[in-house]
Structures are given as C-alpha cells and as structure tokens.
C-alpha cells in the first residue's frame, strides 16, 4: 500500500513537472507584440496532459525554439518561407508548411504511444479551432 502511494506521488510529480506555469493565452494575448511587417507567426501548442512526462524540444527548421509541455504554447515570428517543425523522442516527427507574410500558422503537438517513450505527433489546425484551444493554455516560450 505504501509503495502504491509512493509510485502515485512520483507519477504526480513527473506529470506536474511536465506542465507549463506561465501566463495563460487568454491573459496575455492583448499584450503580445504584433508581428513585424514582412513576418509571419508560428504558434506551437499542446492541449492535453496525456504523456505529460514527455517534454520534447521543438525545432523550427533545425533550430531549437521551445519545449512542448502539456497544456502549453509558444510562438515564434519568422520571415516568409518554407518551414519544418520537428521533435524527437524515440523517433523524429515533423510537419512542413509554407508561411506567408502576415500569416499565422497553428501547429498542434500531441504525444502518442511509443515503444519506450511517447512519440510526438504534429497537426496543422485552422485558426478558429486553434484560438479556442489556446485560450486555456499557458505560455512556455522564452
């Protein structure tokens, strides 16, 4: 019984460690800097606690740009062009898309089952769906 409690406590600690604690999107969206002219914005978000202990680094065209914590988001502003967002646990997964000036792209990260560790999965989401999901998520950007 004691051991079960310890395991449960350890799982809770690991899960909490994988959650973001920054301000919520709904609180900070009015204070977010606007995009510079000639740039686009890429939002990366994760709106589930499934696999919370798995916190992969997220790369934008090979450059580490944030970490994907459970119930969190971050964004980066980039020049128009072709982009690949990727993350690696036991396998590398990615999503590719084009970004235009003044455009926002929304990338949803989820964690699926893997052999030894959860595997990241990426989806592109339309603005309306993403904005709804973002409201309750916490900022995990730098």
């Amino acid at each position, binding site marked *: 019984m004691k051991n079960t409690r310890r395991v449960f406590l350890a799982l809770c600690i690991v899960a909490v460690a994988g959650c973001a604690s920054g301000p919520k999107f709904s609180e900070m969206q009015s204070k977010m800097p606007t995009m510079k002219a000639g740039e686009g914005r890429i939002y990366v978000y994760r709106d589930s606690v499934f696999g919370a202990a798995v916190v992969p680094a997220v790369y934008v065209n090979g450059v580490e740009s944030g970490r994907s914590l459970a119930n969190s988001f971050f964004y980066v502003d980039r020049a128009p062009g072709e982009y690949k967002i990727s993350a690696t646990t036991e396998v590398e997964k990615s*999503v590719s898309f084009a970004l235009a000036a003044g455009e926002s792209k929304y990338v949803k990260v989820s964690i699926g089952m893997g052999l030894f560790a959860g595997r990241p999965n990426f989806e*592109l989401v339309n603005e309306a769906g993403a904005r709804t999901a973002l409201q309750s998520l916490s900022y995990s950007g730098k």
Partner: protein
Amino acid sequence: MRSTWVNVVAIVWVSALCSGCAPEIVRSSIPYVQKAGSTEYIQLTQSLTVPNWSGAGNKIFVGTRWALAGEVSHGRVYRSRDSVFFLQGANSHEAYLVIKDNKLVGFYLPGEKSWSPLEPALSIEFSVK
C-alpha cells in the same frame, strides 16, 4: 487469467505502436509557378475522400473553397481558403490540391516545394468562381 490480461495489454500496445508506423508520403521536388494576385477559386459541389497514408481517410467536404495558388506541370494548384489541409503519413505536410481535367491528380506540398501523386486520380466536382 493473468496471461489473458498480458495478452490484452500486448495487443493494445502493438496496435498503438502500429498506428504510429504510417509510411512516409511519396514526394519529389517540382518547379512551381505562383499565380500572385489571382482571385479565382473553386467550390466543391461534392465531397470526396482521398486515401490517407495513415489509413484514416481524409475527407474534402462539399462547399469548401479552394483558391487558385499556382501551377505545376501536372495541373493547377489550389489552396484551401477555409481551413488548412494537410496529409499525414509518417510525418505531416501542408498540402494544396493539384487538379487537371476535373481530376484530383495529386498534391503540392508547399513546405517542401514537392509533388505527391494521387494514384489513381479521383474525379472532383466543383464550380469555378
């Protein structure tokens, strides 16, 4: 009894693993000519389901609008005006429709400037706006 549970867990685990093992989408580089400033778009008059490489199926719904974005050697390229369309295999790729002679012949992947054929091509019904 215990071995039954072990079998159930093993089946669920292997199924979950296999669902994450979709094949990579076939694609190759292709020259693309952008139609800047075009206001032409098409509106689907019938839904169609394209085979999704993950096996889930990917429905393109009636009424959705696709703006003329450019051209590749295989046909005219249309980008979703209403949402964002992507293909999902081992990885995900934003995709535009490539249409020739009222057939959806494949996809242009703008994030990689690549062409992904759809074989066989599918009939696609739409009105030009």
